[in-house]
């Protein structure tokens, strides 16, 4: 059965998880960390870097390093690198592609479908942009879920009986 991954596409860090034996499991990246910096960079030779490696070189290459692209999602603002313009969707897609590739390496199988979380305050345009980013990354985005909703699901809200749960979204 094809696996569906869940991606938390964050402003500073992103995270990918999968259901295994009825429980969500966070997939570590090849460096062994459970979160990956949401940073995209291009070297002077045009090589693309995503995640920790992009973050480590950021200070030496600020003009070709993109951080916190999530803040621009849903806007028409473009990022220009070496004369080439990238939409926020395209940059986000590069992060999603990395998450997808890491998940595929972990699972040992191709991944085509994903659920992506967005802040509860995201507008329709911002949600659509997130969906588009998934599409560019080669993912069929089955659903866009609000981050606090995902937190509630991960807690197990759907399994227990009737209960009241308070969710704090600390952001950042």
């Amino acid at each position, binding site marked *: 059965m094809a696996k569906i991954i869940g991606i938390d596409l964050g402003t500073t860090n992103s995270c990918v998880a999968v259901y295994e034996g009825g429980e969500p499991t966070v997939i570590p990246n090849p460096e062994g960390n459970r979160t990956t910096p949401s940073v995209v960079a291009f070297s002077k030779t045009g090589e693309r*870097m995503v995640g920790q490696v992009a973050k480590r070189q950021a200070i030496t290459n600020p003009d070709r390093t993109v951080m916190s692209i999530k803040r621009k999602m849903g806007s028409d603002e473009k990022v220009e690198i070496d004369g080439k313009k990238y939409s926020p969707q395209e940059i986000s897609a590069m992060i999603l592609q990395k998450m997808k590739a890491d998940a595929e390496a972990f699972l040992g199988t191709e991944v085509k479908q994903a659920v992506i979380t967005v802040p509860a305050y995201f507008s329709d345009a911002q949600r659509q942009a997130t969906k588009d980013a998934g599409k560019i990354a080669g993912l069929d985005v089955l659903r866009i879920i609000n981050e606090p909703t995902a937190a509630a699901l991960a807690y197990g809200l759907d399994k227990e009986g009737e209960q009241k749960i308070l969710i704090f979204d600390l952001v950042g």
Partner: protein
Amino acid sequence: MEENKTPVEETVKEAPPAETADAPAEAKAEAATPESERKHKAREEKRELAAAKEKAAELEKALAEEKEKYLRMFAEYDNFRRRSQKERDGIYTDAVSDVVGAILPIADNLERAGRYSDGDGEKVAEGLRLTMNALSECLTKLGVTAFGEVGDKFDPNLHNAIMHEEDEAKGEGEIVEVFQPGYRRGDKIIRYAMVKVAN
């Protein structure tokens, strides 16, 4: 709505030829021996019913077996997962014990040095050098090597740039200062070298 329509249309289309072919034959047979025909039909239906019941029982049994198999498999998987988690935790504890055990003699030396030091600066410095050598040896034994030197070319796969400067006397992406050397064991980077990079 449209999905419902197609099959109806098909039956209507197909029905006429079938009727014209079978209808006269059926009518003849019924007219000839209506009683035996009915009995025959009843027997046929009974047989069909029995066969269907048998088939249902068979399928029910097969389903129950599969269900049982699934439940067993799930329980087995759950056990496997718990066991491998326990094993992983065990491996981690063992690995940490091994490493700490290798470093403890150095801690002993430092502790002794603190106890017996008579305030002679030169002797203390000598002791520190020896201890540092012992530590380097210990790290080498663990397969750990240090890297990151001034003059190396910056590589984000090994180095973490925390400062940057423009200096025409230096090369492109040249490391001009190492704040902390990096450490690696095989392909695994334990710590990225913290560096200042030029240009």
